[in-house]
């Protein structure tokens, strides 16, 4: 292949950037954030090149695969590639990373130290991109873990409030999940003698005995569900979000959560189809509980960031519901929901970060009541993001949820009636989502005109937020742009499951 | 190389055994004596005996290195250390700790295991030492032909150990 250098370059560029920040002297403090923008721009450019090289007609198969033997004794190879399932997430990661870098230019959270901040962001970028590109179970696990350390530092040092406690909860919880996931991977590797995700997905995994599949699937799903987060494993999320700095929240919600659901679609569903068919109804039930629980709990929060964190639980519930249908529509819905949630919640956290920067808090009690009057543009963006998040048709957030419902009407698993009950409950979750976002807007945005005005949205904020706004609208009115990419790849995944059906 | 039993010693065997007994006895004194300076002196005896063993084993160069570095440098260094840390002159009960039984057990266990292993594996194996002689020139050629890279790396290590020792032993006022 002519473009085989692209994907490794996508990993190496931010890695080198992170190293440069590590080695840079004190004088780099001034230009570190600009350096971050430069590296992320290069990464974004490379991603665009990847998009250009990507053949949409063959999005069902892995493209631009790079393969090197690494630790043959442990069956571990270095193998990366992209297909229709991972490409959108790679693009999302690069985009959000760029937005975060632009935002950080003038707004590194307390206590400054731009070098370390930028270096950690770049390292985080390596882990996130690698997770989405890895085609080897152990490699996937490694990248999955690489993400944790920078995130811990971001929360623990640049965070606010009970940052240490939140950071420790985050790391304890997710590491526990990862360990369980690694055990599952080992079961798969020992049983099949291969860690090659493509081979495993193409029938090698399905040869495992049903009991082995079940063991592996439960372990892997357990680990991924922590990250997603699936109810009731979500409790690390609100704390982490509340404490994290703005860009940390954005990347946490925008990308990190997607790693869990991506792992399910990429690894669990095609590799362990028999097990997945038996687990799917339970997964669906947890997903719908998550939708309702997230919405109800959201309504009861008294802090903007916590509201959004719980709304994430609900949105990821829709993604999980989509996956649990195991149908083409449902998994497409899940992938679409992933991207949409990344864009929308990313924007929400940016805006809330902007509010926090201006008012010093995100707790309702400390916020002035009338954002619409004191900073109309910021208020508009908050309203826009909230409306997108509550699933307004015509904006990106709706399609993931709607298609998940359509998928739940015709699940590939035998328990159809059960899924239809879940369908109704999930649809109720959409109304509840509207309720809490309207409450937020009413509480934060609409109130008597204040005496002092806040600074409205600045140029650098526009620059970093506009791509998100534009993409939310574009994907909202033209969802097929994304679905065309994912559809063929999803078909391949679903075909592997279809064989496992009774 | 003809096979012979353990109980038919040659002259070399006898020489080695005697030297080895000296080394072991002196070593035992090192770890049991109640006078710290005596321990150092017994160490000299033990290591010197080992150097003799090397000579018997035809490892000429190694033997001289042993004498030069251990007897000449290390032991002197240790004596300096004792002096600087106000080591007690004369017998002292405080040199040995409380876990004598545990230590004895662990030491005996590992000695026994390894000993049994060796006797089991090499009881009848003989060394042919005729015609071998690792003189300084032979070892020098070997070191600088085949082992030059580790040798150089070792020199760097020594240098950094030197620097580290100096840095560590600087008094606090300067730091």
């Amino acid at each position, binding site marked *: 292949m002519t473009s085989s250098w692209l994907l490794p370059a996508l990993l190496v560029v931010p890695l080198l950037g992170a190293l440069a920040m590590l080695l840079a002297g004190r004088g780099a403090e001034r230009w570190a954030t600009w350096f971050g923008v430069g590296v992320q721009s290069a990464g974004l450019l490379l991603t665009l090149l990847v998009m250009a090289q990507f053949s949409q007609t063959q999005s069902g198969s892995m493209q631009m695969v790079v393969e090197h033997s690494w630790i043959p004794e442990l069956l571990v190879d270095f193998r990366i590639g992209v297909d229709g399932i991972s490409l959108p997430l790679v693009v999302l990661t690069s985009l959000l990373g760029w937005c975060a870098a632009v935002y950080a230019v003038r707004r590194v959270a307390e206590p400054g130290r731009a070098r370390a901040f930028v270096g950690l962001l770049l390292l985080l970028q390596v882990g996130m991109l690698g997770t989405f590109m890895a085609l080897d179970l152990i490699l996937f696990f490694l990248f999955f873990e690489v993400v944790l350390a920078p995130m811990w530092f971001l929360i623990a040092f640049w965070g606010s409030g009970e940052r240490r406690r939140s950071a420790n909860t985050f790391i304890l919880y997710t590491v526990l999940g990862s360990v369980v996931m690694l055990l599952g991977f080992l079961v798969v590797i020992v049983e099949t003698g291969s860690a090659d995700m493509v081979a495993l997905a193409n029938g090698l995994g399905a040869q495992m005995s049903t009991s082995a599949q079940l063991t592996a699937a439960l372990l892997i799903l357990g680990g991924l569900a922590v990250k997603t987060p699936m109810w009731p494993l979500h409790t690390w999320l609100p704390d982490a979000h509340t404490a994290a700095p703005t860009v940390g929240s954005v990347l946490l919600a925008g990308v990190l959560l997607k790693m869990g659901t991506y792992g399910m679609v990429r690894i669990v569903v095609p590799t362990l189809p028999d097990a997945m068919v038996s687990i799917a109804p339970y997964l669906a039930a947890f997903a719908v509980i998550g939708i309702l629980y997230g919405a109800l709990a959201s309504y009861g929060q008294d802090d903007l960031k916590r509201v959004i964190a719980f709304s994430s639980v609900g949105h990821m519930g829709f993604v999980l519901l989509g996956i649990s249908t195991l149908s083409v529509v449902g998994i497409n819905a899940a992938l679409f929901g992933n991207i949409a949630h990344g864009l929308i919640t990313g924007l929400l956290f940016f805006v809330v970060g902007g509010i926090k920067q201006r008012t010093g808090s995100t707790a309702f009690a400390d916020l002035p009541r*009338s954002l619409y009057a004191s900073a109309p543009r910021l208020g508009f963006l908050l309203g826009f993001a909230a409306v997108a998040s509550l699933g307004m048709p015509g904006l990106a957030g*709706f399609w993931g949820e709607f298609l998940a419902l359509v998928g739940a009407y015709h699940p590939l698993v035998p328990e159809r009636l059960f899924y239809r009950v879940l369908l109704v409950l999930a649809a109720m979750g959409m109304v509840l989502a509207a309720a809490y976002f309207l409450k937020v807007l009413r509480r934060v945005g*609409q109130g008597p005109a204040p005496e002092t005005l806040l600074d409205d949205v600045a140029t650098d904020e526009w620059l970093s937020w506009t791509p998100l706004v534009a993409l939310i609208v574009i994907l909202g009115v033209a969802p097929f742009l994304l679905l065309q990419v994912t559809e063929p790849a999803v078909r391949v995944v679903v075909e592997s499951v279809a064989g496992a059906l009774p | 190389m003809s096979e012979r039993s353990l109980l038919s010693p040659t002259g070399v065997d006898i020489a080695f055994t005697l030297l080895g007994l000296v080394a072991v006895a002196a070593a035992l004194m090192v770890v049991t004596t109640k006078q710290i300076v005596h321990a150092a002196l017994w160490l000299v005896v033990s290591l010197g005996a080992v150097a003799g063993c090397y000579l018997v084993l035809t490892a000429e160069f190694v033997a001289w290195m042993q004498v030069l570095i251990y007897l000449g440098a290390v032991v002197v260094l240790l004596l300096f250390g004792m002096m600087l840390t106000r080591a007690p002159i004369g017998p002292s009960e405080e040199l040995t700790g409380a876990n004598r039984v545990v230590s004895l057990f662990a030491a005996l266990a590992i000695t026994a295991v390894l000993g049994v*292993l060796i006797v089991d594996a090499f009881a009848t194996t003989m060394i042919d030492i005729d015609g071998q002689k690792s003189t300084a020139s032979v070892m020098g050629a070997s070191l600088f032909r085949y082992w030059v890279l580790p040798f150089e790396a070792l020199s760097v290590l020594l240098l950094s150990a030197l620097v580290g020792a100096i840095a560590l032993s600087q008094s606090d006022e300067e730091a």
Partner: protein
Amino acid sequence: MTAALLMVLVPAVAALLGLLLGGMSRPLAAAIAVGGTASALGVALYLALLEPWAEPLIGTGFGEGTLPLGATVVDGLASTVALMVCFVSLLVQIYSIGYMREEPRYSSYAAFISLFTAAMLAVVVAGDLLLLVIGWEVMGLCSYLLIGQRWEQEEARRAAVKAFLVTKIGDIGFIIGIVVLIGATATTLLPDAVRAAADDPTVATVASGLILLGVLGKSAQFPLHAWLPDAMAGPSPVSALIHAATMVAAGVYVVARLYPMYLAAPAILTAMAVIACVTMLGAAVIAVVQDDLKRVLAWSTVSQLAYMVAALALGARDAAIFHMLSHAFSKALLFLAAGAVIHAVGSGALRELGGLRRSMPVTFITMTIGLLALVGVFPLAGFFSKESVLVAAEHAAHGDAEVASWVGWTVLVVSILTIAVTAAYAQRLWLLTWSGPRRDSSSGVREVPAVMFVPLVVLVVPAVVFGFSALERAWLPTWIQATVTEPLGTAEALRPEVATVVLSVVAVIVGAGAALVFRHRETFARGRAGSFVAAGFGFDAVYQGLVVRPFLVVVGWVTAFDRSAIQRSVSGVGVGTLRAGSLLQRPYRGDVQRYVSSAVTAVVVAIVVMLVAIAT
């Protein structure tokens, strides 16, 4: 890109431009808004000139193979309704230039109205169910934004949220219904899906029942009607738009659009008829005791919409659409006139009005015509459209419909009773506003500027003459009866019949007479019964008790649960880890030599184990 899609996109783009550029200057914002709507009206006229009733114009969507979106269908029905929507929206936009002169947020207001129009047009021309959903929900959003236009007032804030949430509750049903429709028919194209669903009674009943929930929300029918009267907190032009051209018309229109499916589900039709009867009479009675000009009109809208729903339930789609159009003109006229009164006087409370006849002559005349049309006085449009509904009820009573004949009788009786009540509240409204002595608050009141009264005058024209379009030449029935989902039939004129005419004239005279006779009696809500009725038969309290309070209780539970139980389990993980750590830490008290002892022992044990393993 079909012309139909263009018609939707032009006001949508105008909304976008208005939001981006409108802040620069007020005239620019007004130009963008009016220009966008006028262009849409132009496209609608162009579409009508293509005679879509003879041959429906079908536009394919984008994104073939995955989730096609943007398919359009313009048949006679869509074309006619689109014309009405564009026409009323344009007048509302023009009127707003005057009405919102003092408004600081005019640009976003005008943009939202443009978006509202675009959304309604999307519903009207939707050829796939997804475009329908987009338009449907965006309308809900626009109503929230516009009702909450004056969000500094608590009343407006609450009304906006209420409007959004109540309609959204109905939309659960709507969305699930669409999901069922798509899932069961395996297509997202509206005509195909409707045809397929009409062939399967189960799917038809389930889907149409669920979608009906959404319709009840949007068209403000019992029990999801509670938002509409509160929506008066929005500016008057917004009310005109919501009550005439967009929001409430969408519900009726969607049923008409999916009509073959509804005809295949008689149970749902019966339910619709019952709901319509309850709403029709109940809302009219509530309107009689209201003490606010716009609230009277709002309850009247609820009541009039029930006529349309009733007609749909009785299989008379043409009559329903006819009434929807004629009601749109008269109600838009009434709300704009009410807005003019409020603009001039500064209040819409009926106690503070009165004797305005001389100071506001144009408004007086136009509003009087509007009220007459609302009541249904010959020869205004309302007369003919209402008669067509009555005729449909009479036919149904004789067994000419999908539903049982008792349903027809009930609708007929309730309709005629409602006509009497309608005449009564219209008469009362007229008397309290225009006749009688002048109040202090209305001294120095002057007629509104031309930019506001010209739309009123323009609206008078259709309110007066529109009724004749359904008579001898049967223009209107020809336009609206041909749809893509149904074969082309011969259009019948919607002609009044003698029996119903006589009954309704008597009802009007009785109602208006009663209002005249009791005009000196204090008719504002008095006493427990009066305020009970005025508060919509206490329906809000029922909502409060059945929906809001349980919801808040559950929220409390979940929040508390999340704070305590799960939180404890999480910290349990942390504490557990530390406990286990300190347990393992116990042997390690800093005695290095003991560490080494254990290490050596471990090595010995390991070697022995390995040796034994090799030996055996």
